[in-house]
């Protein structure tokens, strides 16, 4: 089984306790729109990033993120608080995205976001591209395209766990809650997804 690397814990819930969403959720449940807008502001980046990484399409991700937050507002009365609001909104977004991906099965169209300039300063990425060629900018874009194409070639189930764990940094047990499966399933899917990705991206990993 593959070992977990540092990337998986980058966005873990270390910042969660600082943001007490319980009160905002209670106010939103009573119809307070400003409280809900605050929740949207707080979670939008992570929800959008997840959806974007699953679709590799900015326009689809923007629409799906918006829909997920609207749907969550409409279903807020049913939110019992068994899980955190964060997990709950993630589940809504992931399920909507999976349904969307099934419906668009035959028309995979990528619409990639631009790379932040910080990518050129990341030592891991620099080491990857410097082994290939000194033409850094071109190769970062090329790598980005190749990486997204490879992700889109994975099955939806495999892509989802790679996105949630390896890119978003969620722990296995939280992914299991979101996907309503056990952690063993998450680990197995993750292992096979990494194997496939590695095979597809072999030229870029030497």
């Amino acid at each position, binding site marked *: 089984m593959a070992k977990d690397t540092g990337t998986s814990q980058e966005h873990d819930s270390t910042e969660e306790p600082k943001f007490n969403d319980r009160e905002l959720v209670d106010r939103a449940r009573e119809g307070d729109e400003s409280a809900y807008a605050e929740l949207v502001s707080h979670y939008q980046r992570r929800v959008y990033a997840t959806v974007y990484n699953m679709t590799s399409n900015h326009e689809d991700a923007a629409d799906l993120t918006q829909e997920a937050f609207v749907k969550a*507002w409409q279903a807020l009365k049913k939110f019992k608080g068994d899980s955190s609001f964060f997990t709950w909104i993630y589940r809504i977004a992931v399920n909507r995205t999976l349904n969307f991906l099934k419906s668009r099965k035959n028309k995979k169209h990528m619409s990639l*976001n631009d790379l932040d300039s910080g990518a050129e300063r*990341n030592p891991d*990425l620099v080491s990857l591209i410097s082994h290939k060629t000194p033409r850094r900018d071109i190769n970062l874009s090329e790598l980005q395209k190749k990486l997204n194409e490879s992700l889109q070639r994975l099955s939806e189930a495999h892509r989802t766990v790679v996105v949630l764990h390896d890119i978003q940094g969620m722990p296995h047990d939280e992914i299991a809650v979101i996907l309503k499966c056990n952690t063993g399933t998450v680990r197995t899917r993750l292992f096979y997804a990494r194997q496939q990705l590695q*095979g597809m991206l072999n030229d870029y*990993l030497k």
Partner: protein
Amino acid sequence: MENDPENFDELHKLLKLKNYEEPPPRFFNELPGKVMSQIVAEEEQRSQSWWSQLVDYFQLKPAMGTTYAAALGAIIVLAVVALKPGPNGGPSIANTGAGFNPLAPSTNLNATSSAPAGIFGPQSGTVQVGFETNRTK
């Protein structure tokens, strides 16, 4: 070789590239506003569609609309009559209890009874009433 953790480490390095993909500027400034606008728009649409569905229904079936209107009018008139304050201050429905429940003993009977003394007195009983009835035959 593929199971070698170091190979997955290289893959993780490459996957970090995904965290540098950024949506267009101002996207996250505008998204909460768009979400809240859509929420308000959908709630308005839902309440409008409820009303317009009702109007459309009665426009398609005017006879049904007339029947419902008449029935509603009748219910309102009955309610007004029934709840109209009676002489005792309470709703008039309380003073017409006999009409609504014929099996219940009427309060008017006791209040205005002209029966001979003794019939409803403490000494009277069913035997006495029965005797009177037999005598009239």
